[in-house]
């Protein structure tokens, strides 16, 4: 057996030298799984088209509708970007409020954080979709129309906001107290210390979990289809209906959706893990 000290050193080196090959493996994984999935989709489509009486093979139907589904997927992407932006802004604010010294602010912030962290996304989605009005009266007198996808976007941003709030809080708490003190002794105000000293140091720690939550968020957007938003899943279902609701369409269509999301999310996961390791080695 290796001596413990040595083993530790070897491990650290192994991790850092491992990075490129790890990434490579990741790309291999994508290729393999993508191949597997497409071949599966094609195979089922073919196998079933043999006995089918429909005018068109399932595969041909799928290919005909792919642009339509992809257009829906663009909405998934759009919703995920926008929701993440909202969640980031609100999450940072909420995280800071949680640390506020006045209990008037910190207690409600804590409550909001934990309420949204502990509720299922679907339930939050229902709440926002059904209880938030379609039109918001703007203070300026105008009205802001909340279309379904916008409301869904807002709904998705809430649980992510709550989790980011916890991440921000955790990251700030983990900054050594000495950083606050030395900034204070250099005449930085509380706000300046936060803005210039603490938050910049938190960013690095928070990036991997932030990306992780983005991936989870992007994977949650199909839920909007339940409430009629025409994103990828909703479009795929509408396409199946338009193509005659033939049961042999289900496997290829849903497989295609799985593949679509996998192709988008998997690289993000790999990238997240690479960044995580890089920071782990650096610190």
């Amino acid at each position: 057996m290796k001596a413990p000290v040595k083993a530790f050193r070897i491990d650290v080196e192994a991790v850092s030298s491992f990075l490129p090959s790890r990434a490579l493996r990741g790309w291999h994984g994508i290729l393999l799984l993508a191949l597997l999935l497409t071949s599966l989709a094609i195979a089922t489509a073919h196998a079933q088209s043999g006995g089918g009486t429909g005018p068109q093979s399932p595969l041909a139907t799928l290919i005909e509708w792919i642009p339509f589904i992809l257009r829906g997927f663009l909405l998934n992407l759009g919703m995920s970007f926008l929701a993440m932006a909202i969640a980031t802004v609100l999450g940072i604010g909420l995280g800071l409020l949680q640390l506020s010294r006045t209990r008037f602010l910190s207690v409600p912030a804590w409550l909001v954080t934990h309420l949204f962290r502990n509720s299922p996304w679907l339930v939050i989605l229902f709440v926002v979709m059904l209880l938030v009005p379609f039109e918001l009266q703007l203070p300026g007198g105008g009205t802001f129309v909340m279309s379904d996808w916008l409301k869904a976007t807002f709904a998705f941003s809430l649980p992510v906001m709550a989790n980011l709030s916890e991440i921000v809080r955790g990251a700030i708490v983990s900054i050594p107290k000495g950083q606050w003190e030395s900034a204070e002794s250099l005449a930085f105000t509380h706000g300046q210390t936060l803005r210039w000293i603490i938050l910049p140091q938190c960013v690095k720690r928070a990036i991997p979990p932030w990306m992780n939550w983005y991936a989870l968020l992007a994977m949650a957007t199909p839920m909007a289809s339940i409430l009629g938003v025409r994103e990828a899943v909703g479009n795929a279902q509408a396409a199946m209906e338009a193509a005659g609701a033939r049961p042999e369409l289900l496997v290829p269509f849903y497989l295609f959706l799985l593949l679509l999301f996998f192709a988008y999310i998997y690289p993000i996961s790999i990238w997240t893990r690479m960044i995580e390791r890089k920071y782990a080695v650096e610190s």
Partner: protein
Amino acid sequence: APAKADGGKLEEILDRGTLRVGVLGAFKPWSFPSPDGSQQGIEVDLAQSVADTLGVKLEPVVVTSANRMQFLQQGKIDAIIGGMYDTAERRQVIGIIEPAYWTSGPTLMAKEGAVASWDDIKGKPVCAKQGANYNKQVQQDYGPRLVAFAGNTEGKAALRAGKCVAWLYDDASIMADLASGEWDGYTMPVSVLYNNPWASAVPIEELDKPWGVFMTGMAYKWQADGKLVELEKKWEVKPSDWIAEQHKRLEWDESYLQGQ
């Protein structure tokens, strides 16, 4: 934005140059997407006829049964032509146009020989659509185990996969499915319950203003001049007795002109 006080909705539409009609997203053959993403179907054609008559462009807006009334109230759409039942509660919030353009009620679709009457579904799994307003009634009257899905596609797929004994839905839609040739071996074994007309609608304050009156005229014309009969043929829907009857009743007898 709310309608202008003076000219009303009709003027607003003409000024704007486009007509926004709320239609359902995946309701074949009334309104469903084509591969290029645009909507098509019977209701889209009806909406198109309104736009053509006004000489404006049609912009179909996909709505859901849950949000269509709010959309109309908020002015996001000018009218609904979206498989909507005419009910007393709805008449309180939106302007339901008479006459209706279609009629339908819940019925069952099942494999031949599986179900003979409504009483046969007691205790058995029946697929249904979430949010359909007759679900609870059917449940209480006939006692099936309702398995409700968010979309028609899933509900019908569940029927096909044998996950339920029948599919509880509007007869108009079931007849269209049966006529499509995709459902060989399936029938509509029971009569329609609580038959109900489908009506188009305008904002309630417009009902007696030019826009509502105009739509009433359109709805009358669809029946009288055979537009609906024609659309039944175009979309291969099993001709409905009600539409044929309405057509006969409302078609203006022009025979008196012959003697002149």
